[in-house]
C-alpha cells in the first residue's frame, strides 16, 4: 500500500469546537490513525509539521490580513482543502458584523480610542480567500461527516452531503413539527439536513447551523414566520445567526429583506 495520506487540521477564528468534535471521535480515532497520518493538529498534539498535506481541514473564518496570508500559504501546501463547520463555510456567528456599521461595531468591541489600532477586515468564510474543494457542515462540524470524508478520500471519491432540508430527517424521526404546531421559529425548512434533525428532536428550533439547503425557500419561510408573529428584527437575527456569508442568505437579505429591515448595511470590502 502506498504511504498513508498526510492530514492537517488547523483553525482560524472560531471557537475551536470543530477540532474538539474531531477529537471526540473516541471509538473511531484509533482506526482512523491506522489509515492516515495526522501531521498537523495543534490543538491535540506537539511536533506539528507545516505540510505538505494530502488533506487539510480548516476551521474558522478569516478576520484579518495576517490570517489571509497564512491561509493562502497553507493552500499551496495542500492537495485537497476542506472547510469544516459554519465559520469556515459561511462565516459563522461573527459574520453578523458584516451587516452592521463597521465603525460602531469596532467602538463597541474595542472602545473609541482603540479603533485604529486593531485591524479587522470583513469576516470571510475561507472560500473568499482560497479555493475550497469540499465543505463539511454543522456547528461544530459533524464528526461522522468528517470520518466519511476521510473514508471516501481513501477509496477515491467524495461523499455527497444530503441536499434536502432538516424537515426530512425530522419527519423520518417522527418528531412533532414545532414550527407548525407550536409556532416555534424553526428554520428547518430552509436548512440543509445531515444533523439528524438534532435540535427539533429535543423540542428546540433549528437555528440553521448547517447553512441553506439547495434552492432554499426563504421568501416562504419568512412569510410564515411573520404570520406566526416574528418581528422584523427577530427574523433578521434568525437568518443571520450562522450564515451571513452563505450565498442564498446574502442574496435574500440584500435583495429582498432589506426593504423590511432598513438597518441592514452590508460592508463591501
Amino acid at each position, binding site marked *: 500500500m502506498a504511504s498513508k495520506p498526510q492530514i492537517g487540521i488547523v483553525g482560524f477564528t472560531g471557537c475551536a469546537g470543530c477540532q474538539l468534535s474531531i477529537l471526540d471521535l473516541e471509538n473511531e480515532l484509533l482506526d482512523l490513525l491506522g489509515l492516515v497520518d495526522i501531521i498537523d493538529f495543534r490543538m491535540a498534539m506537539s511536533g506539528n509539521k507545516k505540510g505538505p498535506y494530502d488533506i487539510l481541514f480548516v476551521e474558522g473564518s478569516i478576520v484579518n490580513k495576517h490570517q489571509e496570508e497564512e491561509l493562502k500559504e497553507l493552500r499551496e501546501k495542500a492537495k485537497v482543502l476542506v472547510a469544516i463547520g459554519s465559520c469556515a463555510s459561511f462565516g459563522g456567528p461573527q459574520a453578523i458584523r458584516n451587516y452592521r456599521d463597521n465603525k460602531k461595531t469596532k467602538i463597541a468591541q474595542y472602545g473609541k480610542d482603540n479603533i485604529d489600532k486593531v485591524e479587522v477586515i470583513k469576516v470571510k468564510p475561507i472560500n473568499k480567500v482560497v479555493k475550497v474543494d469540499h465543505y463539511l457542515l454543522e456547528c461544530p462540524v459533524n464528526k461522522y461527516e468528517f470520518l466519511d470524508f476521510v473514508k471516501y478520500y481513501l477509496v477515491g471519491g467524495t461523499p455527497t452531503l444530503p441536499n434536502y*432540508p432538516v424537515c*426530512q430527517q425530522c419527519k423520518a424521526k417522527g418528531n412533532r413539527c414545532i414550527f407548525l404546531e407550536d409556532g416555534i421559529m424553526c428554520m428547518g425548512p430552509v436548512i440543509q439536513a445531515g444533523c439528524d434533525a438534532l435540535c427539533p428532536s429535543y423540542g428546540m428550533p433549528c437555528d440553521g447551523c448547517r447553512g441553506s439547503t439547495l434552492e432554499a425557500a426563504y421568501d416562504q*419561510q419568512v412569510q410564515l414566520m411573520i404570520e406566526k408573529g416574528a418581528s422584523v428584527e427577530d427574523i433578521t437575527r434568525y437568518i443571520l445567526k450562522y450564515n451571513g456569508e452563505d450565498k442564498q442568505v446574502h442574496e435574500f437579505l440584500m435583495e429582498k429583506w432589506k426593504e423590511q429591515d432598513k438597518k441592514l448595511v452590508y460592508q463591501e470590502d
Partner: protein
Amino acid sequence: MLSKIISRQDLPKLIDALTNDFLVIAPTYDKKVPTFSEVESSSEVEFDILFNEKLPMLPPKKVFLPAKQTVFKYNLIKGVTDSCDEISDAVTHNKNVVIFGVSPCDVSGVGVLERIFRDNYSDDVFLRLHDKTTIISVNCLDHCYENCFCETMSSNDPKSGYDVMLTEISKSKLIAVPNSDKGKKILRDYPELFSQISEKDSEAYIDALNLKNKNFKTEFLVEGLASHVEDSFESEIWKEFTEKCLFCGSCTFVCPTCYCYTVKEIVSVDLKDGERQREWDSCYFPEFALVAGDHNFRETKEQRFRYRYLHKFVDLPRRYNFEGCVGCGRCVTYCPANIDVRDVLKKIIGVM
C-alpha cells in the same frame, strides 16, 4: 359464520395475547405525536387514537419502508453477507408481525405500495416484511377528522389488503371479520377472546355499515380527474401553490402512498465491510430528478410541485387503475405552509 364478536374491553387482552406470538405494532404517542410503534403490552397502546379519531402521523408504510433501511450488507472478500431476506428477518427478530389498528384508508395505502413494489420487479425487503405481516384494521364509521377525504378517493372500503376488520357495532362490541387465511387464523388461535355472532349482532353490523355509508360524503368528483390534471399542465394554478410551498417534503413523508427513496453505500472505517441503505427521498427536492451529465428533468420548483400531482393523479391511475392518494389528509395536516391537496385538485377541476 367465520366472523366473530370481540368485546371492546377484551381488546387489550387480544393485544397481550398477540404479543406472545408476534411482534406487535400499534398506535401509541411518542412525545405527543400519534404514531405506530412496537409495543410489548397493551398498556402501551393508545386506544384513544383509534376511537377518538386521530391518524398516526406516519402511516404503516414506516413498517415496510422505514425512513432509513439497510437492504443488504457485504464484505470485500465474502461478497454479500446479509441478504435482503436475512435483514428483514432480523428487523422483526425472526417473528411475524401484527399491525393493529390500521384505518381503512391506510389499508388502501398499503395496498397501493404493495402493488407497486410487487408489480414491475419485486422488492425483496419490502415484500418480505409485508408478507409476514398481519393487518388488523379498525373500521371508520365517519370521517375521522376535518382533513379526511377518503370517500372522495374511494379508499374507506378496501376489499383486500387487511386480514381482520374490526367494526364497532355498539359501544361495547366489535365484529371481527376475517379477510384472509392469516385473519382466520387469528380468530381461531385466540378462541377465548372471540364469541359467536348472534342474529342481533348481524343486524347491528348491517346498521353500522349503513351508518358508515350515510356519514361519508364526497367532496369533489374524481371521475375524469386524470385528464383534468393533464390538461392543466400549463395552468397558472401550479405557480400559485409553488409560491406558497417551502419544498420541505413533509407532505411526501407522511403520505401513505409516497414511496420514493434514494440509495447510498455506508462503508466501515477499515474499508472492508459495507452496507447498502435506502432512505426516503422526495420529488420536491431539487436533486431528485438529477441524472448523470448534470441533467435535471425538473429544474424548476413549479415543475416539481406539479409532478407530485401528475404522478398521483395521472400516471398511477393509468398504470394501475388507482390514484396515488387515499384521502387521509396527512399532507394537509402536516404541511407547514397550509397547502391543501383538495384545494389544488378543486382548482384544477374548476370547482373552487
